[in-house]
């Protein structure tokens, strides 16, 4: 509608003073308009309340009793930091923003990288490489992940906003070394200065106490015939130990698209590598490997139960009393 045309028609209507027959005794316009607007607002509110409800908690500082710290607790702390306060999984995941470190064997990867011509750092082993990558990430940028000018988009981990302490970075190094079955070379912080004794570290989440609890926790029973579940959406797992090795089972969990069982849709979530703690993954792998037939299920679960004790200890070893 052009401006001139609009003007012409408004002029024509302007002198039309005919009375419009308003409905007498009906619902007033203001009430109808208000009800309509509030209805729309409530629809928006309803949608917001129907979506997944997740809170983003700020990292909480807790005291760590360095004297009682064990390597298992230190590794668990590293995993929690990796997925929590360190915000590493924000980019290091399966969405392609940065190398998916939880799937990669980082010990082997580190050994290869420090030999590359493009590597500009001073690291001689995986421990020093991991430390260096956190405080100076541009020493080596994986091809395809850099950006113009400032080579690495990764923040410096020991500075704000992440601001991990040296002890916390050591825990992440221990986790990265241990997660693929390696032996951590990083030393436990036992003689830290007074200030560092109250190093901040997030409270490690409580792991599942048994393989059965872990299988239920991660919803495996929804698709697989395992424990009491008769589900046939995914391959049955009650006899999986008779047809797969431990390594194959582990790979199927952390990288389900690597091998798709014939006759089943590729629908298994690829997020378990991010979600599961190392101990939980190993408990499930052991449990499934021992599941070679219906009779062995109970025995296997009985055998795996003691394996959870160190993890339980890991939770209690940490003084969880907050500073605040």
């Amino acid at each position, binding site marked *: 509608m052009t401006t001139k045309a609009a003007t012409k028609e408004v002029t024509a209507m302007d002198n039309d003073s005919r009375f419009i027959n308003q409905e007498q005794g009906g619902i007033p316009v203001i009430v109808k*308009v208000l009800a309509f607007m509030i209805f*729309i607002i409530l629809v928006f509110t309803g949608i917001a309340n129907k979506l997944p409800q997740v809170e983003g908690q700020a990292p909480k500082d807790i005291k760590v009793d360095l004297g009682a710290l064990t390597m298992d607790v230190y590794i668990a702390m590293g995993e929690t930091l990796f997925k929590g306060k360190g915000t590493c999984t924000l980019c290091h995941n399966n969405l392609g923003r940065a190398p998916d470190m939880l799937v990669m064997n980082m010990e082997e990867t580190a050994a290869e990288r420090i030999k590359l011509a493009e590597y500009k750092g001073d690291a001689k082993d995986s421990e020093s490489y991991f430390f260096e990558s956190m405080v100076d990430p541009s020493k080596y940028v994986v091809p395809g992940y850099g950006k113009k000018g400032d080579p690495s988009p990764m923040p410096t981990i020991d500075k704000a906003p992440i601001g991990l302490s040296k002890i916390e970075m050591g825990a992440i190094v221990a986790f990265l070394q241990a997660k693929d079955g390696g032996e951590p070379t990083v030393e436990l912080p036992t003689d830290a200065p007074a200030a560092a004794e109250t190093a901040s570290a997030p409270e490690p989440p409580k792991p599942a106490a048994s393989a059965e609890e872990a299988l239920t926790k991660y919803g495996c029973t929804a698709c697989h015939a395992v424990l009491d579940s008769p589900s046939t959406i995914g391959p049955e797992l009650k006899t999986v130990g008779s047809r797969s090795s431990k390594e194959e089972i582990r790979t199927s969990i952390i990288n389900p698209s690597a091998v798709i069982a014939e006759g089943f849709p590729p629908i298994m979530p690829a997020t378990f590598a991010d979600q599961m703690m190392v101990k939980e993954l190993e408990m499930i792998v052991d449990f499934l490997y021992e599941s070679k037939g219906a009779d062995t299920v109970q025995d296997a679960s009985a055998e795996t139960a003691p394996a959870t004790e160190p993890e339980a200890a890991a939770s209690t070893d940490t003084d969880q009393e907050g500073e605040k």
Partner: protein
Amino acid sequence: MLLQKPPYKNLIPAASKSMLTIFALFMLLSMVMIAPDTAWSSSDAAAVAEPAGEAVENMPAPTMGPRDYRQIGSMSSRSFVWVVAQLHLFLAAFVLAVPLFVTVIEWIGVKTGDQRYDDMAHEFMKVSMTAYSLTALFGGTLAFSLFLLYPTFMGYMMEVFGNQVMVYALLFFLESGVLYIYYYSWYALRYGNKKYVHLTLGVLLNGVGTTLLFVANAWATFMMAPSGVDDAGVVTGGIWDIMRGPLWNPLNLHRFVANIAFGGAVVGAYAGYKMLSARTMAQRAHYDWMGYTANFIAVLAFLPLPFAGYWLMAEIYAYSQQMGITAMGGILAWLFIVQAVLIGTILLSANYYLWNGMSRCEGAKRYMWLIKYIAVTLVVSFLIWVTPHTLILSAKEIAALGGSHHPLLGPLGIMPAKNIAVNLMLIGTFLSFQLYRRADKVITVPWAGFGNALMVAIYLVAIANVIFLGVYFGYFTNTVYKVGSSVAQVVSTLIVIISGVVIDSMMFKGAKTLPVKWGHISNRGVYALFALPIAFTWLMALMGYVRSSVRTHWHVYTVMKDNSVDNYIPNIGHAGNMMTVATISFLLIILFIFWVASLSETKQALPAKQSAK
């Protein structure tokens, strides 16, 4: 004749001269106060506060403890400030936006010589005037709340911004002065050259208002991406270094454009309400035209908003990839599903209003058969846009769904599908707009057939291009091409819009105009004018929340930690409830404003006794 030539000596009235002098003095004072090389600049604020000769180093950002936070009873401080700040921002956006398009409408009135534009502009301003004082009241309440509940944080912000806040206060005085003169001199400066003085006042008002907006934006962007301070928060630069952070200009542009869309939508609701309550056909026609104009302003300003938003988000990523991912791919990512619902509501409402508006003109019947196809495209695209990628499900739900990704909906949840959907929605909306513009025309240019065929070809090629780029590069190549192809999709959409405007303006030359019956839109169609401001208001609250929440547990990102009990990002439901509280409160305030604006038109009938005399 509208423009009568007055004697030259009256060209600039004495009042305007005085005001211009005050403005000049004010600007001089402001420049002196914020100039980086004077003792009044922020970086030297400490030196000013101390006796001469005793240089004092600036303080780092304080570490916050429980004593640095206060509460009003058991009320959450964050919730209280959240609602008050949101209401202040709603009202401020409205009062800053209205004079922008009012001045343009006033100018159109001068150019066309039609007083109705002038009357409409004046009526828009009348609505805005009541809102202005309420903006100031909420602004004052917000300032007091912040100083009461977050005294240490506000102390640090005062340390950083120093005398700049007084510039803001002075600008507010100036804004008030110019606003009152602009509004109350409307009829005193209506004709002849005096009208140009009035228009100049309008430009001045918008200049001051926009400066106010930019000054306040600097506080928000400093909290997101601090500049002019070191890692500990110690001020190292002048006030210009502090204000000119990496996100300042993107936010300035985004808020400036969004305010216009928001203001247009709110006055559209005013016109819609007045139209439904009209007692005569003349009133109904007038407010129908007013509603159409307001809707036009809102949609016109809305169309470039995605590009302004893209720039802001690109700068956020450039500043901190972590911050960008927190917004778009982290805990806040689900909010973009709600954003899709809101923008879908806006586009569907705008289209519905245009389709209903076509009933004003007999010539529109030629195009009605196309509406159902546009409607289907919009609805299907909208449903694709709101399809989530990943779902947090219970084991039972996973079993019922057949996996975490529904086999049919999984591919629709990712960005390539959404890019196709959004671009098709924009193209569909432009087609509705183009059909509406053509409804009252009979094109007479000899090449009309070729022009129409060219336009149809552009639409078909663009739609095919948008779908092909999305499907091929989105599903059959890697991520790098996926991102690159989205730019080509947007270019296809822009080509449709630009070529449509150009081809139509050439084809409309010498076109025969068909009659338009203002006021003949259905009442149901007018309700779209109420859906628009609600969706805009909720959207503003939502995106403001996302912008603020990307700071996570920092008052000032990387410099000053938030150690309050509210230092977490609340879940979407809680945030949505807060937005609803703010939106309903704003709705009630706006109804009050409309009522007050209407009150001035109401005249009491002369009592019978006096009438008899």
